[in-house]
């Protein structure tokens, strides 16, 4: 049961982008189309799973003082491996579109965050499931953002025109400011759903750190959270 939870928590309850708010750089930068989002998500999942397993195996012997550099070396190794593999086997358009962001998985906070917060304290099986769940949660969010952005800007999904009359691109959703707005709307939606569920179950809803309603008085959601505003 707890093994299943290790896997599923990444998909919703501790979704890396929408709840932990980690890894926003790739989320904003490469999700201009659904294909790019999916490719980036899967590459990150590979790195997360592999680094989580290796780190949970070696965590017992790594000296505390140099654990972060050691983790980074492990992560960087897997990032280089996925970079080489994608260069060799993925469609060239995808590799060109993701470009530098593949290498930048090294500095993605999700990967190091999971290594430090989970893999170094749990056994390889649980770490594997945690990495897989977090990775897939990340992939789902990126793909969803990509689908929304691609659809709003060109009327297509996965590069297939869904609305055939849509010939002129709408630029805002495909640019970085549009990405901010869309991810913001997704975050707000996630907060709203979690809040409603918490209210229904009679619990106190604690929003993600720094994302509560203390500083904002536009709507009355904040009054339902825990009365902090």
């Amino acid at each position, binding site marked *: 049961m707890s093994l299943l939870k290790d896997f599923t928590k990444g998909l919703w309850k501790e979704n890396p982008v929408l709840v932990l708010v980690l890894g926003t750089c790739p989320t904003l930068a490469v999700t201009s189309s659904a294909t790019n989002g999916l490719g980036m998500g899967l590459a990150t999942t590979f790195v997360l799973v592999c680094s989580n397993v290796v780190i949970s195996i070696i965590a017992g012997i790594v000296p505390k*003082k140099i654990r972060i550099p050691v983790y980074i070396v492990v992560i960087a*190794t897997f990032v280089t491996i996925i970079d080489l593999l994608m260069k060799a086997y993925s469609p060239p358009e995808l590799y060109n579109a993701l470009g530098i962001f593949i290498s930048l998985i090294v500095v993605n906070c999700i990967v190091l965050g999971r290594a430090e917060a989970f893999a170094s304290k749990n056994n390889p099986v649980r770490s594997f499931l945690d990495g897989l769940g977090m990775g897939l949660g990340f992939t789902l969010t990126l793909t969803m953002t990509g689908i929304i952005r691609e659809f709003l800007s060109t009327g297509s999904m996965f590069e297939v025109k869904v609305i055939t009359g849509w010939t002129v691109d709408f630029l805002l959703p495909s640019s970085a400011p549009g990405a901010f707005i869309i991810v913001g709307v997704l975050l707000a939606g996630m907060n709203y759903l979690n809040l409603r569920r918490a209210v229904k179950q009679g619990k106190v809803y604690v929003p993600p750190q720094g994302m509560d309603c203390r500083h904002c008085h536009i709507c009355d959601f904040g009054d339902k959270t825990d009365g902090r505003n």
Partner: protein
Amino acid sequence: MKLKETENTVVLGVFLAVIGLVAALALAYISQLTAAPIAAAEQNATNQALQKVLPPFDNQPSANTITVKDPDGRDVTFYGALRDGKLVGFAGKGSNPQGYAGAIEGLVGLEADGSVRTVLITRQSETPGLGTVVCDRKEVKTIFTLFKPSDKKDGAVPANRILDQFAGRKAMESPWRVSKDGGEFEFQTGATVTSRAVTALVWSIARAFEQNRAAVEAALGGNK
């Protein structure tokens, strides 16, 4: 003293070095493993692009190359296409650093007489929706045509308003300009910088051919 709690600098250094060594070995192995597929993928991409811009050929243009300088001193690599031992066309590969977001790389197919045949942009990072309109040759798939077989003939490339207007022209002395700068070529509204860069790129490749014609033809096996 346990390894985990140690603060001995030498031990820490050695430990990190060992981890680095293991990582380096693993990477060396993977790198060796993927070297051949990566080379094959790159070769494949070049061949596909060459097939699009060149007239039908029966040699290996990717192995029949010469590099010359364009009027601005940048390298242009020419690929020669032969058919029955005769030169039927060239493809020039060059780049222009004046794109809106970094360099634009292109492949320009030339007829045997030096007039432009097909222009293909092979690498760019222009603004999606503006600059990419100038650079992309993409067949638009819709949900209605998704499962239908394509009725395009082999070798035909999807149209592009900007890239197609260079076809059939020869590069004379004066550089080509977009109409905004007093030239004769159309540009994409909202992507003037990209249009300028692409126009300059095509001209410099075609011009490089004109200037080095004798050398290029001799090296790529014409008149043999």
